[in-house]
């Protein structure tokens, strides 16, 4: 290789990257949509979902619960106790099962006519909760009623045992004390299960239309043939295009993260405590960088192998599904943290982002595995794409 050849190559790469960015940024509307849509959507989602969940939980927990009771007359003390627990006992409508099923009421209570007799005989008196377990919305009201009845039963049970001169602990051979080791940071991580998918998707496909446009689009517009007739090496031309797309992808991610920071700063309740310090955001950017590279090289590869922009775009729906797969698999089959996970694309990003959001420490080995595998895959895709770029048919549009 002659001296100066590598210098020439580098400058061709930068020339192409600069031109693609100039070309792109002249297309104001596309840039605005590409750069601002997600950063606007993102806070809306976080603030919206956050406040919605918060509000719903608060109203269901704190509001007076309307509780239709069948046979309230059989247990006046229990009814009074329930009313002291912020519930409004009301007469039951006809056909209670149907009314619960059609969602007129979340939960109803039936007190059997034998209640009084059983109670006096110190036998377990029967009550029945009527609810629809397939409805998420009724979970909190059902839990409230059940807890209240259990408390009532528990208190009276203790009194009965004491009345018989026995220690209440006799009837309680085992006592479970609960110690939840979830840190506050990890708890809010649970609130953020959807976050990795959004971040991975925006880094993976954030610059998709740009990548498709600079290869498949340029061929369709018939300017690729003259471009490839210049002395610039094809690999440099392709790398320049990839560099431009990566730069654009990182810029759009940066804006998303800024929006992320802003929305978590103003978010209600637990979400406000998400770690959005500058080091955390920089680490997030570093985690997403390999994803940007993988997405860009993969799309370049696809664009170089298809016949038209349309064909390239039809791969998009498939590509959008890829980042969901690990999230779904983890939901169905949760696995323990293991090093191999940091080498599996999409799963690795998912784990890294969750760790960052939960403020868990990431070991040097995990970082090395993650970055090695991510950039390794990016490089592999780059090599394959460069081979496709050397195909004869690439330049020919017709």
């Amino acid at each position: 290789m002659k001296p100066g050849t590598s210098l020439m190559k580098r400058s061709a790469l930068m020339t192409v990257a600069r031109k693609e960015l100039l070309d792109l940024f002249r297309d104001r509307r596309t840039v605005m949509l590409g750069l601002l849509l997600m950063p606007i959507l993102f806070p809306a989602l976080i603030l919206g979902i956050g406040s919605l969940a918060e509000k719903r939980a608060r109203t269901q927990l704190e509001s007076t619960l309307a509780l239709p009771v069948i046979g309230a007359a059989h247990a006046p003390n229990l009814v009074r106790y329930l009313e002291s627990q912020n519930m409004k006992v009301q007469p039951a409508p006809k056909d209670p099962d149907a009314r619960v099923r059609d969602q007129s009421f979340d939960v109803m209570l039936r007190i059997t006519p034998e209640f009084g007799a059983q109670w006096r005989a110190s036998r377990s008196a029967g009550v029945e909760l009527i609810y629809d377990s397939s409805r998420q919305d009724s979970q909190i009201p059902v839990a409230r009623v059940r807890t209240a009845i259990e408390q009532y039963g528990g208190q009276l049970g203790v009194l009965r045992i004491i009345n018989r001169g026995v220690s209440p602990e006799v009837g309680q051979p085992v006592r479970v004390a609960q110690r939840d080791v979830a840190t506050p940071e990890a708890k809010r991580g649970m609130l953020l299960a959807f976050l990795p998918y959004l971040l991975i998707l925006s880094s993976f496909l954030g610059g998709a239309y740009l990548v498709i446009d600079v290869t498949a689009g340029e061929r369709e517009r018939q300017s690729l043939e003259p471009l490839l007739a210049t002395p610039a090496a094809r690999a440099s031309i392709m790398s320049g295009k990839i560099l431009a797309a990566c730069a654009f992808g990182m810029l759009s991610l940066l804006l998303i993260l800024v929006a992320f920071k802003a929305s978590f700063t103003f978010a209600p309740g637990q979400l406000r405590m998400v770690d959005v310090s500058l080091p955390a955001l920089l680490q997030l950017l570093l985690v997403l960088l390999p994803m940007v590279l993988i997405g860009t090289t993969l799309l370049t590869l696809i664009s170089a192998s298809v016949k038209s922009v349309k064909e390239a775009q039809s791969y998009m729906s498939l590509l959008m599904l890829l980042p969901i797969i690990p999230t779904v698999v983890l939901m169905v089959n949760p696995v323990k943290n293991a090093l191999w996970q940091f080498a599996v694309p999409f799963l690795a990003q998912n784990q890294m982002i969750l760790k960052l959001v939960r403020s868990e420490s990431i070991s040097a080995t995990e970082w090395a595995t993650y970055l090695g595998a991510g950039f390794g895959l990016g490089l592999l895709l780059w090599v394959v794409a460069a081979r496709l770029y050397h195909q004869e048919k690439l330049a020919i549009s017709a």
Partner: protein
Amino acid sequence: MIEVQNLHKSFKTRTGIVQAVRGVSFQARDGEITGLLGPNGAGKTTTLRMLYTLMTPDQGSVRVDGLDIARDATAVRRQLGVLPDARGVYKRLTARENIAYFGQLHGLDDATIAARTAQMAQTLGMDFLDRRTEGFSQGQRTKTAIARALVHDPRNVILDEPTNGLDVMTTRGLRTFLLQLRSEGRCVIFSSHIMQEVAALCDRIVVIAEGEVKASGTPDELRAQTGEDNLEDAFVKAIGSEEGLHA
């Protein structure tokens, strides 16, 4: 100087193998205009694409100023100014930026690019340098593409159907421009299916049909070979049909 020896090229298509070029040989000398004349689909574009290294010949060789395209493709591309069949310009860039982009890819510095752009704009009559090319007429686009192709002042110029789609005035201007390139001592090759254009401009003519050279030489040699006094009749006789040609 471009020397073409026995070029072959075939493509696989759904219906079978198409032999686009079958043994094309010719020489294009410096200070001369060499015309490739032939009907549409004769193999002209494929031949030219092999000349400017976009396609690899199945067989045969091409030397540009003594450099072999198979071994020194990059150096060959540096010696060539190419106006391909596909002449898309970047519509969000101005004509000047389109030209500068290619100048930079040829490794030229900004001062050289500016000087060459001004020179080309004057020769080609481009008074639209600082407008974005979106909405350009066909003629303005072709001029931009030619200026872009010649920004590095190449010794050899290859133009694929340069007058395609241009109006009469622009075509006349372009012919004058080709003659000027010749007078500057460059080696000019262009392809055309218009007999009158080839007859008016070319020092040497290569008549191509069905991927083969049917006749070649100076206008006088062609007249002698075919026994026709009229050059256009000579073309038709060499090809064996008028189909696909244009007077």
